């Protein structure tokens, strides 16, 4: 098993079509998306309504891409959108494919 990075982005559902090309442009080869609700500085987002729904995106990638994703996402979107990003070290088989 080799160590790579998992980057998780939680953001407004409205960002979905904008953020996915961004991830690929930063070098991600894939991602996994779950629907979510939540609460943060901008109050409750209860997902009862598409404008109050969040998504949670996970990307497995190498450290370089991870750094680029965190940077881009943060710079481009965190001023105007509800958004949280974090990174974790994980172990995978065949790390080369990510």
């Amino acid at each position: 098993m080799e160590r790579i990075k998992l980057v998780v982005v939680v953001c407004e559902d409205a960002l979905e079509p904008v953020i996915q090309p961004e991830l690929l442009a930063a070098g991600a080869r894939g991602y996994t998306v779950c629907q979510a609700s939540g609460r943060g500085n901008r109050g409750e987002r209860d997902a009862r309504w598409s404008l109050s729904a969040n998504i949670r995106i996970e990307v497995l990638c190498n450290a370089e891409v991870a750094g680029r994703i965190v940077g881009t996402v943060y710079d481009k979107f965190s001023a105007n959108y509800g958004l949280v990003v974090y990174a974790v070290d994980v172990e995978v088989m065949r790390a080369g494919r990510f």
Partner: protein
Amino acid sequence: MTGLDPVVGFFALGLAAGFLRSDLKLSGGLMDTLSLYLLVAIGLKGGMELALVAEPGALLLPIAIAVLMSAGTPLLAYPALRFLGGLRRPDAASIAAHYGSVSVVTFAVGTTYLSGRGIGYENYLSVLLVFLEFPALIIGVLLAKGIGQGTDWRRLAHEVFTGKAIVLLVGSLAIGWLWGKDGASALTLFYGDLFKGFLTLFMLGMGVITAARFADLRSAGAFLIGFGIVVPVISAVGGVLIGWWLGLSIGGATLLATLYASASYIAAPAAMRIAIPDANPALSMGASLGVTFPFNLLLGIPLYHAMVEYLYRAAG
């Protein structure tokens, strides 16, 4: 309770559930399904009745005029928001776009109001609905950014013209038109007679969502609350006059006024969130959903109807 339609009762029930912090909620999936149904039903109805019109070409001019004049709402709203309300430029532009666009459900409640009173209206108003949705969105972006200032116009055009509300309305209008009332008659039970039933469920959900938006009102403040009542009434006056000038029936002019007075809370918020990212969505949603939508349902529509009746009686 002859003044209001039972669909308004369902909205009130949803509001009450929200304010009581009940665990009643309509899932996002259900609300999406219901709004899909409503859009298709409205489009189909318009298309089927368009098929009965002898010369559809003759409708182009009144539609073009009504659409053109609808630009009055955002162009009036923007300076009011910016200079009277002291709002930031992106916020003023985004809110102006919401008020310039239209609310499909307010329109649906308007038609329900009229048919509950046996008042007819010109069928091509559903066609109008389609064309009133998007111009304000483009005006909003122009107001926010000026021309050529790095807006991704291709993306915006794509967002606006392929948004699901437009696609469903235009597409089902075309289906209704192509097949006409006979060809599509097996659909009138589903999309016609059941319309009001599905609308009650949607209104229930809107009530719950609106109650949740009341918190946004606090951040919106007193100015926006007043704005959310005054601007629709002024826009409705414009709608009444244009309806009268175009020679619409009483029902038609009432619906046109209702459309002008209504503020979008489906197409506009989604488009503005991407196109004007630095606008605060709590302000536009607080005003359009928290103030204008309930105002139009409860007081606006009967008021616009009364205005039309007064004008038509006065003008003979």
